């Protein structure tokens, strides 16, 4: 097309270039003007200030990034980690966790837990953020809401230890029958459905937080939808919530224990799930702390940042499908797969992220047993990879099943899940000659396929709801809705019942030890890893608590310290 170049001294060209320069200047001016106009317009509709510093000593403010917007903050209906993190700062239950993860008095100044029930005596100075006292009735109202079928709370089952809770939630009893009542404004009386060994730990959970009836009713459908649609009784109060953009927590002047709260403001003017953006913000000095992904690890090491790590409590494993028509219902096939599985190799060579631990049991390492760590008191049976023995089991499985068709491994479509699935695909093909077909799905579709039983194996995971081994221990009980492979073993069921109903720590831990043994010896699943978390934090910010169960990260006890 461009056969002949334009003549160099064409008067039209020269005039045109001059014109273009003028036009260019006009365009820049137009663009700048437009931008100023739009900035003015959006400042009217509620924008933020321009620049945030990670730490401001004068106002005792820290700035952070929020990975995601909380769906809503009505504690009776919360399900996700972000909501529980914010609620953990702005609300307080009867009992709370302190900086060293011990249970300490919250709204209740003392309590008594008996086999058939519990009594909580509320402190006199516990206040809502409008200055009115927190009463026993606020707990009765909130707990009834949680189990009220009309409220459709997904976490309602966490209140099932309270008398009649399940019956109310399944519409067989009216909500007034719930086994909790306010004897007086400062005494709360709870009846149990059966003995429960860890009710003090349950009470620290977000679904047990109080809600004040008159305020709740005055907000109607809007309760928990905005900062003004909530009342707070925790160390902080939410003073700003621009959806998808900005959350700000400020010290609650009515909190009974306000003198121990050092930070004045926790500001979160950035909402993004992009870890690279978060790390750029940290590098820029705009935020005080952030989590790290694998992509940022190398750079963080290069910049010699101080890396923090902790286990977040979740365990990951491969579940089998026990429906009779599935090859994985054959114990010898599962045994063969178990004998070639090498979670140490998976974690150290394939995932290769600091903080991750090779999976050896359904019960992660952080759980407490009778006195010390559970896994020290009840070491799980060791499975050493043994390819010869695996092939022997495979031969038996072939005799029983005939030819083994390719197995379907259902998995999430996320970077780590992909690595994990491809590792298994390669491993089982290489060592046993078993072909694995990967079925990668987004989270919700994976769940649906799990529930309908459309898999042979599935890469799954489980995070704790409360700090007791039972949160993992009852997963493979035949009646548990999360047992999606439909594993059924009366021996295991019996142990779960003991763990659920006994109050004696020794008896309960013995039961969990048995459950652990059965899960490994019957090759019920293949442990993969215990997830670790990496984060960076400004050295001036001290006393932030990271937890496996409960509010994480917890800034309630954090303080600022100027470093030289």
């Amino acid at each position, binding site marked *: 097309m*461009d056969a002949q*170049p334009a003549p160099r001294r064409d*008067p*039209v*060209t*020269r*005039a*045109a270039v001059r014109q*273009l320069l003028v*036009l260019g200047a006009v*365009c820049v001016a*137009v*663009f700048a003007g*437009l931008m100023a106009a*739009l*900035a003015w*317009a959006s400042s009217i509709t509620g*924008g933020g*200030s*321009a*620049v*945030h510093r990670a730490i401001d000593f004068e106002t005792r403010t820290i700035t952070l990034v929020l990975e995601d917007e909380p*769906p*809503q903050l*009505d504690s009776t209906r919360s*399900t996700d980690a972000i909501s529980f993190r914010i609620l953990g700062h702005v609300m307080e239950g009867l009992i709370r966790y302190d900086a060293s993860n011990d249970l300490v008095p919250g709204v209740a100044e003392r309590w008594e837990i008996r086999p058939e029930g519990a009594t909580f005596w509320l402190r006199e100075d516990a206040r809502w953020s409008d200055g009115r006292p927190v009463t026993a009735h606020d707990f009765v109202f909130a707990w009834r809401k949680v189990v009220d079928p009309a409220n*459709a709370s*997904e976490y*309602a*089952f966490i209140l099932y230890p309270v008398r009649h809770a399940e019956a109310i*939630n*399944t*519409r067989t009893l009216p909500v007034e029958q719930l086994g909790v009542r306010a004897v007086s404004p400062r005494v709360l009386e709870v009846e149990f459905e059966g003995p429960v060994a860890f009710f003090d730990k349950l009470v620290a959970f977000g679904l047990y937080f109080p809600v004040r009836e008159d305020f709740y009713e005055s907000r109607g*459908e*809007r*309760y928990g*939808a905005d900062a003004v*649609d909530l009342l707070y009784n925790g160390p902080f109060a939410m003073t700003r919530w*621009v959806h*998808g*953009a*900005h959350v700000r927590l400020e010290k609650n002047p009515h909190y009974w224990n306000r003198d121990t709260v050092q930070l004045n403001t926790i500001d979160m003017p*950035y909402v*993004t799930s*992009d870890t690279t*953006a978060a790390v*750029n913000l940290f*590098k*820029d000095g*705009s935020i005080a702390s952030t989590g790290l992904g694998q992509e940022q690890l190398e750079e963080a090491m290069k910049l010699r940042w101080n890396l923090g790590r902790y286990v977040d409590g979740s365990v990951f494993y491969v579940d089998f499908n026990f429906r009779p028509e599935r090859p994985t219902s054959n114990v010898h096939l599962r045994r063969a797969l178990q004998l070639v599985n090498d979670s140490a190799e998976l974690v150290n060579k394939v995932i290769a992220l600091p903080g991750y631990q090779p999976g050896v049991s359904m019960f992660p390492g952080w759980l407490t047993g009778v006195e010390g760590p559970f896994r020290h008191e009840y070491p799980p049976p060791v499975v050493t990879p043994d390819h010869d023995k695996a092939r022997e089991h495979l031969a038996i499985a072939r005799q029983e099943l005939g030819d083994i068709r390719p197995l379907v491994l259902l998995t999430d479509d996320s970077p780590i899940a992909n690595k994990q699935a491809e590792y298994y695909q390669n491993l089982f093909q290489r060592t046993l000659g078993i072909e694995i077909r990967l079925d990668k799905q*987004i989270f*919700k*579709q994976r*769940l*649906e*396929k799990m*529930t309908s039983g459309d898999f042979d194996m599935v890469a799954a995971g489980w995070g704790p709801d409360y700090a007791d081994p039972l949160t993992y221990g009852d997963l493979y009980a035949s009646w548990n*809705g*999360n047992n*999606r492979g439909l594993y059924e073993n009366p021996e295991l069921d019996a142990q779960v019942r003991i763990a659920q109903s006994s109050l004696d720590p020794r008896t309960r831990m013995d039961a969990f030890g048995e459950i652990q043994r059965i899960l490994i010896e019957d090759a019920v699943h293949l442990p993969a890893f215990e997830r670790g978390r990496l984060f960076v934090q400004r050295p001036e910010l001290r006393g932030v608590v990271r937890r496996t169960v409960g509010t994480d990260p917890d800034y309630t006890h954090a303080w600022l310290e100027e470093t030289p």
Partner: protein
Amino acid sequence: MLAYTVKRLLQGAATVWFIATATFVAMHSVPGDPLANQRATSEEIRRNLEERYGLDRPVIEQYGIFLGSMLRGDFGISFTQENRRVNDIIRENFPVSATLGILAVTFAALGGILWGALTALYRNRLPDLVITFLVILGISVPSFVVAALGQLALVNLNAAVGEPLLPVAGWGTLRHMIVPSLVLGLGTMAYLTRLMRSSMLEIADADFIRTARAKGLPPTRIFLKHQLRNAILPVVTVLGPAIAAITTGGFVVELVFAIPGLGRYFVTAVQQLDYTVIMGTTVFYGAFLVVMVIAVDLLYGWIDPRVRLE
């Protein structure tokens, strides 16, 4: 003109209805359960949730209810943002996307026209070659790379200056808007530059330019009145779809720069099977696109007297 506008608006309404129906059908045929969560819910809780969202009714009835409330301009309550109406989500977050989009489109259009005209004037000489190379780069590098690089450049800029000159992310002031809108508009600008260049070259050989030169019009007048004005027409044509594409396609830029735009809701809703948000945003964006295309067609008739709208 009026008859034409009415006709186009009616066609547009039919298009939006078709988009809504197709999305509704597609959404309900995708495997996956919008109410599924990590923890298995009991039959009872599930039934409570289904009732809350009307999922217990037959699909055809759900469709009828959806169409009815859509006509009233009500898209219902989000599945994941449980206390928020989809209307509120659109009302609060679309202005942000629109602000970003308007800036990006203005930047892309002005830049595209200027660079395109310049490259055409310097055809096959150094400025042309340099800009054409940059244009190819701009078209082929995906926006998430440009966004990440742009953000990294900001971090380094602030570090070099020693104080926060421009914020690395966030939203609310003039300083937040500059880099994201440039990043968002870059691809479109590159595309428009190429379009403008070829359009300019085509016009340069046209008979009426030769006539204008022959009759001795001043060069300034030839360039502005005859060449530039005619060359802009194809650019205006693609501007409508470009506005819609930029405003709806800001997802990556919004994520990287932590901008509370609608694009994020649009994409995550699909991943989370948030039925009401999917329907609300799709219908809204669909209507937006249709309106933009009609607006550009009307504008076209106004700029180019040869086009008669009937």
